[in-house]
Structure formats: structure tokens, C-alpha cells
């Protein structure tokens, strides 16, 4: 297979585009896709400050590397979720990567604020992936808003967006269908959220990292087993294999034709937002979702403490 541009031996074949590229031409193609997303969806301008959420995985590292390469003003934000055998190595990868490339790194540790994910998992009855996502979004928004960044960028790629759109469509979730896309404008205390990798698949971000020698984490979160998005991605992989380009068509046509139908209906029945009585974050209720989770964690800890005291008293009495 030859590179479509320079006719050298190809390194990356892209059936969805009926093409293949050598390493140098693939890098140019990758940059063009990001430029196109930023330009077409008006994600941000070269003068703006971008906070990039960096997990240590291939997508977020490729994103910040590419945006910096295009001259954008980027700062990395990493959340240490306190997950055993996962968060520690991820934090080390991010710290080493940022040091090697000269990126400013901001680390937030929700565990220090009573929200370590293992303790949260023990305290709540809901699926931990949804709760963990809520905590991450809360702190990413908080830092972006309070520290005056113009946009918060995440490494969501085309596969992530297609899996999410598919899940939202299965439920005909008009709130999410009306707002899904590479740009969520700033509103009140919500910072602008952007997804500059929305035109690139995870195969492409993995190839980008390999060709640029970006060392990234690949360890699965120990709590992510059975997550629904993974199953949806497999279904879409089957479809893409039979009909290359399906993912791009599904997502891009949704953005141009489908989203506009749902946008007027999104959050129509939502209670007006107010400031959380504890942390001041925007919330539908008096106390925001994250502060309610923290209260649940404290309640479980207090109960465990009281039970331990009770056991101690019983043991003492039996002597």
C-alpha cells in the first residue's frame, strides 16, 4: 500500500477515507482534521487559554501534543481519582509527559476532598462509572471556570462520540441529543467544553502517539468492566467493517441534520439552576450532585466508625 500523497510505503491505512498515508503525511492529515474541527465548530481561537484534561491515555496526550504543536496556549489538568493500581501510574505518566514537553500541569486530587473513587464506590448504589464521570466533570469545570480558562478541551474521539450518540439515540434522550457535539458553549458557571478530536478515530490517535513516540497508559480502569460504551463500540466496529465510513456519516449527519431538531427541546423541563449551598457550583437542587455524593461517603464512614466503637465496647464488656 502506498501513501496517497507522496507514494512512499504507507504506515497507516484508513478504509473509512479509502486512503493510506506514510508517517509524515499522516501527521499532516491528523493536524488537518483537528484544524477542521476547531475551525468548523468554532471551538476556540489562537488567543484563548485552553485547559486540556489529560488522563494519561492516548487520546488526551495526542490532543495536548497536537494543540501545542499548532501553537495554542494549553495547560494540562490531571485528576487523581485514587483508584488502586490505576491512578498512581496514570499520574506518573502525565507528570513525565508534561515535564518532557514543557507543559504546565495542574493536578487535582478529589480524594483530598473526601471523594476517593474506591470510597465513593462503597458508599453509592449507582454504577460507579457514572458517578466517577460526574466527579470528573465537576472538578474539570470548576478549575476551568474559577481559573478563567476560555475553554476546557477533552480527548473524546470519533469512537467515543459515536458510542455516546448511539446510547443517547437508543433512549431518545432529547436533553443529551440536543446538546451533544464538539462544542458546548459557556453558560453561567459552566465553562465552554470542546472536543477537537471528534473527527479522528481511536485507531488514528493510537497511530499518532506511536509515530510521535508519546508514551501513554493502556491499563484499563479496574472498575470499568462491563461498561455499556465498550459494547456499543464493538457493535459500531462491526458496522464500520462492513461499511467503512459509517461512524463518520452517523456523527457528522447528526450534527448537521439531527441535532437541530432536538436542540429546542433540550433541558426544557429542567429546574432553573442555582448555586450549590456547599460549594457554589451550578445545580438543579439546593445541594449539587457531587456534594451529595460526598455526604453519602461521610455518612458511610461515620457509620463504620460508630460500628467499630460499638464492637470495641462489646469486646470490652465481654472481658
Amino acid at each position: 500500500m502506498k501513501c496517497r500523497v507522496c507514494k512512499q510505503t504507507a504506515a497507516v491505512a484508513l478504509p473509512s477515507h479509502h486512503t493510506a498515508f506514510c508517517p509524515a503525511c499522516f501527521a499532516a492529515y491528523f493536524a488537518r482534521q483537528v484544524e477542521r474541527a476547531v475551525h468548523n465548530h468554532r471551538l476556540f481561537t489562537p488567543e484563548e487559554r485552553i485547559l486540556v484534561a489529560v488522563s494519561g491515555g492516548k487520546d488526551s496526550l495526542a490532543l495536548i501534543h497536537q494543540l501545542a504543536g499548532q501553537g495554542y496556549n494549553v495547560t494540562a489538568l490531571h485528576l487523581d481519582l485514587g483508584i488502586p493500581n490505576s491512578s498512581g501510574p496514570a499520574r506518573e505518566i502525565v507528570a513525565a509527559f508534561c515535564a518532557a514537553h514543557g507543559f504546565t500541569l495542574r493536578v487535582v486530587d478529589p480524594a483530598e476532598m473526601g471523594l476517593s473513587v474506591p470510597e465513593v464506590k462503597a458508599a453509592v448504589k449507582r454504577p460507579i462509572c457514572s458517578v466517577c464521570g460526574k466527579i470528573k466533570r465537576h472538578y474539570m469545570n470548576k478549575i476551568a471556570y474559577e481559573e478563567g480558562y476560555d475553554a476546557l478541551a477533552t480527548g473524546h474521539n470519533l469512537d467515543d462520540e459515536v458510542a455516546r450518540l448511539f446510547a443517547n439515540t437508543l433512549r431518545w434522550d432529547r436533553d443529551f441529543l440536543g446538546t451533544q457535539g464538539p462544542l458546548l458553549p459557556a453558560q453561567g458557571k459552566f465553562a465552554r467544553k470542546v472536543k477537537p478530536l471528534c473527527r479522528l478515530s481511536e485507531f488514528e490517535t493510537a497511530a499518532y502517539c506511536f509515530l510521535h513516540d508519546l508514551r501513554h497508559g493502556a491499563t484499563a480502569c479496574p472498575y470499568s468492566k462491563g461498561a455499556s460504551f465498550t459494547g456499543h463500540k464493538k457493535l459500531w466496529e462491526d458496522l464500520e467493517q462492513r461499511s467503512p465510513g459509517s461512524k463518520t456519516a452517523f456523527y457528522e449527519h447528526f450534527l448537521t441534520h439531527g441535532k437541530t431538531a432536538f436542540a429546542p427541546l433540550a433541558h426544557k423541563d429542567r429546574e432553573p439552576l442555582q448555586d450549590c449551598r456547599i460549594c457554589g457550583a451550578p445545580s438543579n437542587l439546593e445541594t449539587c450532585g457531587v456534594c451529595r455524593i460526598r455526604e453519602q461517603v461521610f455518612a458511610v464512614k461515620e457509620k463504620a466508625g460508630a460500628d467499630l466503637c460499638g464492637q470495641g465496647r462489646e469486646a470490652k464488656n465481654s472481658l
Partner: protein
Amino acid sequence: MITVHLEPEGQTLTFDTLNTVLQLLHKVGKRQSQALVIRGGELLTQDRKLHRGDEIVVRGVTSRG
């Protein structure tokens, strides 16, 4: 003999004969868009020929949370 290292599974397989990357992907149950195929620091497309003595890495690309 061709040696194949599967990542992130950490498994190593050997094959007596394999002609192309496409054949290898079929053998390990992966599709072209699900894995990078690497030989000596080079990414291989699915039409590339494999040779006796090759050491290949098949690196899965799907995020797992």
C-alpha cells in the same frame, strides 16, 4: 517462526507460517482498525508481507475506561 506479542494482554504467540499482516490479524481475532501492527519501530498496513524470524507487536487501540 514468527513471534507475535499481544498488547495489552501481555501474551506471546508463535506462528510457523504467516504471509501478511491481514492473515496475522485474522489469526489473533482483530480487525485492522482495532490494533496497531508494529515491526521494529515501523507501523505495518494489512497488505505488508511477514517474514520468518519477524518479531511483531499487535497493540490493541480500544479504550477500556
